[in-house]
């Protein structure tokens, strides 16, 4: 096979591109908020470390390519990932650059408020463990539609599930791609355009050649690097204060402009409805993200599925405690030294490179230039790995749900399905690059939140009701899913973060007054599923309800579940 040779050739091209891009860059140093970053001086240490990461991961892709033969290998790594490995991979998917740089930046800016957010990102995991993980593994094959549509009419359910997946993937992806471009200007001193092409092409190679095996290992390596780097930073900070949180907090209160206000809840949560609504989006959205759900099909059985969430929760929780310490470490290390880290040496003008640079500057402060390069490379590798996972889940929605089930009614052989998923991967890679470039100057801050709201309001209710409620029918699930999707998108457009900040209507004109639509859109979806299902008297409804016992037996015991190997 020429796969290896092709791999090597593409690799050489990418390296050439990296060197070229780096060489072509002029040096600039100025600050801005994260929306639009300024290109910084070329950081050769960071570029070198990132190059090393890319080389190692492409080596893994080559190894994985030899193991990726069937559709099951491509979508789910042949079900051969252990619970511990999968836990790290899930944690890797979840610890995006936005949560690392964003949350530490939030803690740096307002202290305690950052903690409120971290907790929200974490608490969805136990619910997944208790109610979803094992059942997902027992019922699923390649995509969450396999689970949601287990006993339903395939065509409508798959069309809904693929729409839900693709919309979530699209918003999540745009946020990541724009973040990649802004980060590379900031961290590497390279052009935005090169960042887009670099992320797009490397990510495509992971997915195209190595499938789920490569995507999982890239994510595991990245998770270890990120956890290792963050642990080092947090330990370095705690060492400065003799491992006394009180001493660290005391110093932070002394130097921070908000003084003791950073020790309690501040302006982040403006009203109770928003607080609960954001909480619901984060908690239930996690259980509806397609690129997270697909990871439950990569382990051999329900026991490993449940262990993977145990490990994922542990690593993610640990990581959020670290980012909290890192945020406070940034306060105590950076603010007393304004000449180095702040625009014009003035704390009031903000950090060089914007508020999300707190963790990166702290890396330089506690570990020197070498470590700064390492953390920069990790931040970029993070985006690359997350985008690869998103692309794979998008590709499986198109090839497995839309092409194989809806278009060909299941009458399709593995080789054809695999070919379609590879073509889709290339297509999605190109779309990602184009969207990344198109949205360069747009405000994309709301997009990750919107992805969570949609996942919580469309994918999660359908999945939950179809697995756990015996009277749920095809019509109910599809109607409720689309109601959740449409309500979530419509209300988000009406909220201040889109209406005023993206569509530029005057301040105060937003017609949806809260930060998140979830508190309305989640109940809307559940109510619709319930109402349509109980009123459904069609012949199909009878089939749907009659299918519940068999589904339940399989979901509870795993008897008849996919083994993950060849079929």
């Amino acid at each position: 096979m020429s796969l290896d040779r092709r791999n090597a050739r593409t690799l050489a091209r990418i390296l050439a591109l990296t060197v070229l891009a780096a060489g072509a860059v002029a040096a600039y140093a100025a600050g801005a908020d994260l929306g639009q970053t300024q290109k910084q001086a070329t950081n050769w240490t960071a570029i070198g470390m990132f190059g090393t990461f890319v080389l190692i991961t492409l080596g893994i892709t080559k190894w994985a390519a030899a193991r990726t033969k069937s559709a099951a290998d491509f979508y789910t790594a042949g079900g051969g990932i252990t619970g511990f490995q999968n836990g790290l991979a899930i944690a890797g998917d979840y610890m995006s650059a936005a949560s690392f740089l964003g949350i530490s930046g939030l803690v740096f800016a307002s202290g305690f408020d950052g903690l409120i957010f971290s907790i929200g990102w974490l608490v969805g995991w136990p619910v997944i463990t208790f109610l979803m993980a094992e059942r997902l593994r027992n019922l699923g094959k390649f995509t969450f539609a396999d689970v949601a549509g287990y006993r339903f009419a395939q065509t409508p359910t798959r069309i809904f599930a693929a729409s839900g997946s693709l919309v979530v993937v699209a918003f999540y992806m745009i946020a990541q791609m724009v973040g990649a471009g802004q980060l590379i200007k900031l961290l590497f001193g390279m052009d935005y355009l090169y960042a887009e092409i670099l992320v797009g092409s490397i990510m495509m190679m992971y997915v195209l050649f190595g499938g789920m095996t490569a995507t999982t290992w890239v994510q595991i390596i990245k998770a270890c690097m990120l956890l290792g780097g963050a642990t080092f930073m947090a330990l370095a900070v705690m060492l400065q204060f003799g491992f006394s949180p009180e001493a660290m907090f005391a110093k932070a209160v002394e130097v921070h402009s908000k003084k003791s206000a950073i020790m309690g809840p501040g302006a982040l949560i403006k009203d109770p409805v928003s607080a609960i609504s954001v909480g619901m989006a984060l908690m239930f959205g996690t259980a509806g993200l397609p690129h997270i759900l697909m990871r439950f099909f990569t382990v051999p059985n329900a026991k490993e599925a449940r262990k993977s969430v145990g490990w994922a929760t542990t690593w993610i929780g640990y990581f959020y405690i670290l980012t909290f310490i890192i945020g406070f470490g940034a306060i105590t290390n950076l603010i007393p030294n304004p000449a180095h880290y702040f625009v014009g040496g003035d704390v009031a003008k903000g950090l060089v490179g914007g508020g999300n640079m707190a963790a990166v500057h702290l890396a330089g402060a506690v570990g020197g230039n070498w470590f700064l390069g390492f953390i920069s490379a990790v931040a970029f590798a993070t985006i690359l790995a997350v985008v690869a996972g998103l692309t794979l889940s998008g590709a499986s929605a198109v090839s497995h749900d839309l092409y194989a089930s809806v278009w060909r009614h299941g009458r399709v052989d593995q080789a054809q399905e695999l070919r379609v998923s590879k073509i889709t991967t290339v297509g999605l890679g190109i779309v990602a690059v184009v969207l990344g470039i198109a949205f360069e100057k747009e405000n994309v801050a709301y997009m990750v939140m919107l992805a969570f709201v949609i996942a919580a309001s469309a994918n999660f209710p359908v999945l939950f009701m179809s697995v756990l409620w015996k009277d749920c029918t095809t019509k109910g699930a599809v109607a409720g899913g689309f109601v959740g999707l449409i309500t979530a998108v419509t209300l988000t457009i009406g909220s201040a973060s889109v209406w005023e900040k993206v569509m530029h209507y005057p301040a105060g004109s937003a017609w949806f007054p809260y930060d998140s639509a979830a508190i309305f859109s989640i109940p809307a979806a559940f109510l619709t599923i319930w109402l349509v299902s109980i009123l459904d008297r069609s012949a199909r409804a009878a089939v749907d309800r009659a299918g519940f016992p068999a589904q339940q037996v399989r979901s509870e015991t795993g008897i008849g579940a996919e083994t993950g190997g060849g079929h």
Partner: protein
Amino acid sequence: MENDLVTRIEGHPQYIELKAKRTRFGWWLSLAGMIAYYGFILLVAFDKPFLAQKLGNGVTTVGMPLGVAVIVFTIIITWFYVRRANREFDTLTEQIVKGVLK
């Protein structure tokens, strides 16, 4: 799956036991997780001064250990479920599989 097998498993005493135990355990733990989280969020929403109140003479506030406790609690209940499921639920499942598949 054949209907005959489904009927046999559905009537299996261990299956009924597994279903009841796991469902009850799962819902109770979910409830515990939600109370911890939404309890914290409601404090943030309605009683900010409580969270901002100082512990002793230092600068550390009530909210800090409480917030970290929610994170640790989340991890603990997850493993609590995993351990019981690994021991008890998997044994029951094995018994069902042996009983019906021979």
